[in-house]
């Protein structure tokens, strides 16, 4: 295990993913949830780049995907923030527990 390999990155990414999940699941602040999403996306990206490195078939594709993910994450953050701001304008809070209009 001392030789650096794919597994290490995958485990790191899994940890990041779990943290992201936990972050989304526990934060009540909408911005915090957004951060959790970023963590999850980063976890995915780590995987992509690790595959790029360690799997010959992914030399380009892994990077392409990682770039796309980064770009989309930025876009997502922008839209999410716009939504959050709107929500804040309407409700005066960013507590997602207040955002229960979809309650069945």
């Amino acid at each position, binding site marked *: 295990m*001392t*030789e650096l*390999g794919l*597994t*290490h*990155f*995958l*485990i*790191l*990414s*899994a*940890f990041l*993913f*779990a*943290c*992201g*999940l*936990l*972050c989304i*699941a*526990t*934060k009540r602040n909408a*911005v915090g949830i957004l*951060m959790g999403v*970023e*963590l999850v996306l*980063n976890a995915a*990206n*780590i995987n992509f*780049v690790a595959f*790029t*490195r*360690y*799997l010959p078939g992914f*030399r*380009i594709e892994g*990077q*392409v995907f*990682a*770039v*796309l993910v*980064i*770009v989309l*994450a*930025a*876009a997502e*953050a*922008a*839209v999410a*923030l*716009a*939504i*959050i*701001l*709107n929500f*804040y304008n309407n409700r*005066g*809070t*960013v*507590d997602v527990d207040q955002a229960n209009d979809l309650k069945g």
Partner: protein
Amino acid sequence: MNLDFVLFTILATLIAASAVGVVSSATIVRSAVFLLFTLIGVAFLYFLLGAEFLGATQLIVYVGGTLVLVVFGGMLTTAGPFNVLRTKTAEWVLSGSVAAGVFALLVSISLQLGARPTSTGDIPGPGPLGMAFLTTHLLPFEIVSVHLLVVLIGAAYLARAKKKAGSP
């Protein structure tokens, strides 16, 4: 025990610790700071893996752009100084166990995956990447471009200052 491994260990520790920090921080800006470290760590992880372009992109887009936006948003929407929204312990336990379960499963899958023979090699630089974007992966590239345009307009629309009725 080579340098790469050591560097990886350091970076991984940084990333993991600050990720934990993100989760456990009570205030949003602190979370953001920890996230900053995570992201930077990830960026350096890319450098470590040889994906310089990606690392730089991660820095410029995530750290310089996204995260600033996030913090910005956090500041704009915080009702009072260092506002804290707490979650119940039960929820923490529940979410924590789910996350732990997912982590465990992912790790076991990772072990299986990592056990397969892999090969290393240089990662292509920005040139081939750009070529790929303009040739074989043109469609996703274009989709993302359009997507960005839509996001630009959409975000501007959503966040625009709404004229209150009565105000000029």
